[in-house]
């Protein structure tokens, strides 16, 4: 059996941990830079606030309904996520963190008499220890466990835990479950299925195997057999290095001059290098992108990106930062107000797997590597941003985080206060 533990409305729930007064009140959390809603409490969902709704478009609803608004507080969310994971690890030896708010658990090889009670107990413990509400679905496959966890959210009487295993129960649920909501069914597959008249997970699970193979290849077949109760997706409790790395940001004020855009992009590139080096990967290809505000209807619109290919896979600061700045300079066009930009490493390899090309210049590479190592060491000891490349500027553009809650669990000056009475 597998479980999926999914934190309900995670960021909004984190904001409530130290603010019990917000229980029952609509809460939303805004993306980086207060751009749009990225988390909504159930009360906020009931008001019709959609995922990704731009902040300026929902201000009226917010004011009328006394919605509590928060800027993202990733220090808090990261800490709370770690706490939930820790609780989960007390229930199963293998826990695969799938995202900041979801984890799979593997119970194979364990003797458990009552899975339904276990699911409810896991949810209760998470709630008691961390104050985060968690939905726990247990089922014979990861894909079914994910569906079971969604049932917990629909039916409060399940008390946060749902064990779905009898074929007749699975059939009943799948007959009503939209195939587009099944884990692993992407937007394109969903559109293809809609064209075929396949709307529910049950209809998909009953397609002939050969058709699934032909139309949806191996990933589609895996999902198909998982829906039929056969575990087909590997359990990954080892953290895989990320296959792409992206640092991007929306700007508080639109950027309309080239040096300022280059400065921002240089900072993003530096962030990308830090992440690359942390996971000991090397970049082969990098894309720099910038786009205008698509909600401004009469302003000229641009979505531009430039791809850079590195002759040799690299994680060296100077090479990556200067390539990113060059790309930013090339894609910038006067007369456009850029709202968002970013740097993405689109292809990367693990340092340990990589064999240098025959023609690479060993000597100069060594020099670059030493420079990068020194930058790492200094920034690690004295704080991020101690050493910067000239092009990174002094961070003239600050992120807007007007509604950020205190770092309750990660900064001494922010720990909550209690009086004695």
């Amino acid at each position, binding site marked *: 059996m597998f479980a999926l533990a999914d934190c309900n409305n995670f960021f909004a729930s984190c904001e409530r941990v130290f603010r*019990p007064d917000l229980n029952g009140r609509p809460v939303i959390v805004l993306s980086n830079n207060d751009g749009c809603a990225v988390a909504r409490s159930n009360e906020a969902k009931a008001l019709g606030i959609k995922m990704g709704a731009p902040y300026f478009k929902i201000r009226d609803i917010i004011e009328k309904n006394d919605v509590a608004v928060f800027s993202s507080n990733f220090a808090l969310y990261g800490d709370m996520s770690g*706490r939930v994971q*820790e609780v989960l690890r007390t229930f199963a030896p293998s826990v695969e963190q799938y995202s900041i708010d979801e984890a799979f658990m593997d119970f194979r090889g364990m003797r458990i008499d009552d899975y339904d009670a276990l699911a409810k107990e896991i949810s209760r413990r998470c709630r*008691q220890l961390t104050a985060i509400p968690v939905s726990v679905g247990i089922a014979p496959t990861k894909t079914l466990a994910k569906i079971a966890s969604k049932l917990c959210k629909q039916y409060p009487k399940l008390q946060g835990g749902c064990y779905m295993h009898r074929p007749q129960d699975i059939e009943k649920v799948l007959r009503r479950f939209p195939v587009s909501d099944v884990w692993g069914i992407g937007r394109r597959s969903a559109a293809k299925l809609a064209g075929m008249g396949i709307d529910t997970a049950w209809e998909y699970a009953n397609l002939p195997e050969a058709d699934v193979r032909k139309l949806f290849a191996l990933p589609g077949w895996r999902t198909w057999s998982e829906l039929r109760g056969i575990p087909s997706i590997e359990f990954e409790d080892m953290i895989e290095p990320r296959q792409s790395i992206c640092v991007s940001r929306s700007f508080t004020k639109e950027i309309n001059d080239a040096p300022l855009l280059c400065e921002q992009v240089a900072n993003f590139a530096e962030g990308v290098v830090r992440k690359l080096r942390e996971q000991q990967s090397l970049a082969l290809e990098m894309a720099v992108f910038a786009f205008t505000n698509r909600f401004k209807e009469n302003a000229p619109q641009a979505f531009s990106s430039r791809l850079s290919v590195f002759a040799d896979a690299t994680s060296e600061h100077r090479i990556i930062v200067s390539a990113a700045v060059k790309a930013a300079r090339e894609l910038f066009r006067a007369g456009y107000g850029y709202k968002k930009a970013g740097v993405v490493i689109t292809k990367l390899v693990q340092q340990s797997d990589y064999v240098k090309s025959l023609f690479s210049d060993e000597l100069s590479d060594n020099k670059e590597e030493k420079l990068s190592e020194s930058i790492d060491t200094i920034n690690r000891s004295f704080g991020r941003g101690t050493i910067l490349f000239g092009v990174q500027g002094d961070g003239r553009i600050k992120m807007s985080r007007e509604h950020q809650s205190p770092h309750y*669990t990660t*900064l*001494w000056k922010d*720990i909550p206060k*209690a009086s*004695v009475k």
Partner: protein
Amino acid sequence: MDPHKIEDNDSLEALMLGGVKAGFPSPAEDVREKLDLVKLLVRHSASTFFFRIDGVSMVDADMDEGDIIIVDRAVEPYDGCKAVCFIDGEYTVKRVKITRSGALLLPCNEQNSTYKPIPVGPDDDFLIWGVVTWVIKKA
């Protein structure tokens, strides 16, 4: 440097982990482990939180302005324990008395009669936020 002073901007993690190990392994390393204060104070890291005492309206409450209290949500409230409670929109440390029908929140100082006991019913999920396990105060 004042060893008592916790810099406001120090991250909790850095303080808890201490310095980075470097250099040759010491031959004494296998012999004895250092006493680890964090291990003593934080029994359950998933459920342990820190609060700072701010505003003490009684004497002899064992807690003073500026003290750091350690709160562990894994500990079930027991008779006579001190707990951080969320009352009227703020956190207040109270003494818990377990009764047959639930619990009562009493003032921290038994002699104090300014504050009336507050009954905790079965639906008051958030009234008791967590049980205080340690009080850290400057000497």
